[in-house]
């Protein structure tokens, strides 16, 4: 039962979507209940709760680290304080004060716009330094394939910047156009198409396996 019932649920849930592909939503309506959009809204509701699982996990892990006074527990405490500083004002009704809730002017909104978002941007901005360092230290023409990769990368990097376009045009007027046509819209496009087709066939096969109950890894042990 612990395995059979979920398999039946998965099949029925998927079958509704397959039916919806061929049959118009209006013809599968029971009063106020339109089958396809309602089932999809149920999925979005369940999906929302799934996002909270991660939050519970973070709180548990950091709480245990603080309780046991592990190495760096002060930083874990900062994490816990940040979680609650963001979460608690957000769930209090904003009728009590405009500082509560998630609207503009709330604590939640302020913490996101003035702390979270800039820090997230900065974390990713640091990758620029790492990619420059990696290009300098590791990017070597060890064989034909690596040389092909390197030459294409250099051409594309030049083509994408105004100074580079001027340099390429000074060699020959048509070079930027040729890069766009034969590299980006030619070889690159063809390879990406091959990958898209292969991945899509794999996804379709995996979807069939899930619906038929052959693939059960998503259920865990």
């Amino acid at each position: 039962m612990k395995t059979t019932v979920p398999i039946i649920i998965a099949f029925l849930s998927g079958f509704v979507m397959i039916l919806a592909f061929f049959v118009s939503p209006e013809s599968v309506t029971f009063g106020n209940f339109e089958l396809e959009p309602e089932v999809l809204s149920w999925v979005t509701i369940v999906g929302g709760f799934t996002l909270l699982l991660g939050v519970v996990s973070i709180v548990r892990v950091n709480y245990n680290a603080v309780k046991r006074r592990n190495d760096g527990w002060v930083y874990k405490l900062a994490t816990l304080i940040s979680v609650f500083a963001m979460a608690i004002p957000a769930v209090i009704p904003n009728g009590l004060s405009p500082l509560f809730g998630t609207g503009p002017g709330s604590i939640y909104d302020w913490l996101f716009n003035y702390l979270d978002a800039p820090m997230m941007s900065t974390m990713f901005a640091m990758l620029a330094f790492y990619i420059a360092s990696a290009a300098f230290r590791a990017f070597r023409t060890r064989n034909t394939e690596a040389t092909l990769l390197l030459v294409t990368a250099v051409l594309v990097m030049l083509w994408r910047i105004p100074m580079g376009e001027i340099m390429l045009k000074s060699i020959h007027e048509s070079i930027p156009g040729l890069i766009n046509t034969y590299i980006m819209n030619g070889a690159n496009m063809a390879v990406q198409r091959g990958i898209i087709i292969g991945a899509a066939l794999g996804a379709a096969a995996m979807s069939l396996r899930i619906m038929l109950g052959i693939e059960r890894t998503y259920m865990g042990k």
Partner: protein
Amino acid sequence: MNLVDFLQIWIIAFFTLSLFSFLYKDNPFYKIAEHIFAGLSAGYYVGLIWHSVIIQQMIDPMLNNDKWWLVFPGLLGVLMFSRFSKRFSWISRMSLAFVMGNTAGIFLLSELHGKVLPQIQSTMMSLNPGQGFADFLLALVIVVGVLSTLIYFYFSKEHKGALGKAAKVGIWMIMISFGAHFGYTVMARISLLIGRVQFLIDDWCGSIIQLF
């Protein structure tokens, strides 16, 4: 510039520079900024899900539109938390199966109808040399590129003989594509850094200049 705006800019600048300080050496300023960032990101989800899912998608429609059946997805959502219990974690399979089955049903058709068919159709290009050398060459590159890439990723047979040669062409095409990807990735990463530097110079240094 008023005092509140000034302080806000300085708070952003403090945390930005704390994170950048890691490039020199790991230090407590970086660690505290990193941990605060992780906590805020997790906390953001709580507010978002509370309002956009629980209030707007469940409670309001149940009370105002008589959609009493929304208690069922709510129950399925709550059952997800049984994953934290070793004894009752099997209950969460119902919720997972519901979501996974639904997504599988959508993908089964959309992947074939929306990706495989249109992409294959667009690859069926004319290889007639009479259409002009440029168009013919492009069509040839595309057809050979798609076929050789698909052949390269076919691992059920050893890459020998004609298959091996086609796979070799495939790997060259793939290297060209990855080179293009690398070039674009460099551009992407640099752009993100430019964004932060624009803030530090235009807004933060601008606020300092305004003091004088």
